[in-house]
């Protein structure tokens, strides 16, 4: 349980989350790539892993303290090393999250939600995708919304995070029947239905990694 008495996460909590996620991605590299082979170009796991393997040494080199500064480094490292669709999107996610938390040495649920809001709207500006397009947003937006609801309902952070994971899970699975309108899967038209979106799957893993790290 990482949240302190006042519901705050520290720099170390964030760094541990990123490190944990890098491990999760390495473990799921093949799985994500297989999902991408079905409706994309068989590289999502490889792309994400390349990025997070580049993030790890950057993290080690970072002076602990400023959560936002660290997340910006994660974001710009991903932009510079991942490429593909996931590089700019995940990069933007962390970059905007970092901008929203700049200068902070601890982050609570409220700032977390502000960060997610900033990240999601920047990702939508960049990728022009809407919910239901069968993209990573279909896991990310429901997760953010569930987190907000739980937080507004006064739930404990751990419970709120679990609600976010459930929503991400559900959103991820809900991509299966969708016909893709964005990303490579859209080239398949109707043939994209029946497959789970790789990006929504890696987002689900990201939310899970947060829950497992911070409320495990």
């Amino acid at each position, binding site marked *: 349980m990482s949240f302190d008495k006042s519901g705050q996460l520290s720099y170390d909590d964030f760094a541990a989350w990123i490190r944990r996620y890098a491990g999760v991605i390495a473990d799921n590299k093949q799985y994500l*790539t297989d999902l991408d*082979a*079905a*409706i*994309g*170009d*068989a*590289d999502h796991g*490889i*792309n994400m892993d*390349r990025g997070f393997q580049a993030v790890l040494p950057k993290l080690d080199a970072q002076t602990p303290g400023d959560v936002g500064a660290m997340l910006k480094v994660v974001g710009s490292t991903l*932009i*510079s*090393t*991942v*490429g*593909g*669709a*996931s*590089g*700019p*999107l995940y990069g933007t996610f962390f970059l905007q999250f970092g901008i929203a938390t700049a200068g902070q040495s601890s982050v609570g649920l409220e700032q977390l939600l502000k960060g997610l809001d900033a990240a999601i709207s920047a990702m939508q500006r*960049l*990728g022009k995708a809407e919910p239901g397009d069968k993209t990573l947003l279909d896991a990310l937006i429901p997760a953010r919304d569930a987190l907000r609801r739980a937080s507004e309902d006064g739930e404990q952070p751990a419970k709120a995070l679990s609600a976010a994971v459930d929503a991400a899970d559900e959103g991820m699975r809900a991509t299966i029947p969708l016909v893709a*309108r*964005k*990303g*490579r899967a*859209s*080239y*398949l*038209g109707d*043939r994209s239905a029946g497959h789970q979106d790789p990006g929504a799957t890696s987002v689900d893993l990201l939310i899970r990694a947060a829950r497992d790290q911070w409320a495990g």
Partner: protein
Amino acid sequence: MKKLINAPDRVVDEALAGMAAAHSDLIRVEPPNIVVRKDAPRRGKVGVISGGGSGHEPMHGGFVGLGMLDAACPGAVFTSPVPDQMQAATKAVDGGAGVLHIVKNYTGDIMNFDLAAQLAEAEGIQVKSVVIADDVAVKDSLYTAGRRGVGGTVLAEKIVGGCAESGANLDTVTAMCQRVQDNVRSMGMALTSCTLPSVGKPTFDLGDDEMEIGIGIHGEPGRSRMKIATADQIVEMLMTPILEDLPFKSGDRVLAFVNGMGGTPLIELYVVYNAVASMLKGKGITVARNLVGSYITSLDMAGCSISLLKLDDEMTRFWDAPVHTPALRWGL
């Protein structure tokens, strides 16, 4: 997996090193993995760059040189390059007249080029972009990612390169690229899947008697899968949607481009070209120029694509203009 490589994660770097060694008179390869025309930047000339995932060789690095691209940004295999590359390439080729980005229409390419253009403009370089989206196998719609950029890219890079070499300004070069995009249509098919070095097994499974029609250049599944057909039938299946889409009509003058996907030998491409030429003849369409060979590939995929570009005099002139790159050369 059967490939002439040392390790999956070294393929791109070693191929670039090989290219640099083989064509040191034409290009240089610089960090962060960009292929730059030897004599870039050229003062006053509009810079033309392109880029995309690797695995499509000779595209784009093989098209760097006089009369074509000033730089290319090769990403990891089938993965859009990162903005740092396009930013570095833009800076390396800017001769003060601005830089055109020729971007194939893939979400990743679009977003990474977008970020790069913002970075370059922040440094005071004027950047324009044209998106190539010529693959008629993909339904075009406002609400989707739209058509892929495929074979038309090669033709655009040559014609635009010729235009830029002639001294045209950034607006003119950009308009010429858009004109090629507006007049080119393509479609491809695969007899076999490609195999990504990092994956080690075919991206998709095709039965021994099956082919995939409407394929892209990344092993993405195509429009439909069916029993293998004759070259004439395949040409008919690819040409019909191409011809209808623009549409091309009797009296048009076209550039016909038969492209190999990487694992298909030239003898088969000529069989395909023969069918293309006679079909066009039957429709009263004149093949004013042609290109037959493997210029935009999908690793070791067997298959082909066909592109038709409706030519006007200016496009024809820039197509004919001298070019000296590793993969295309004429006029000097």
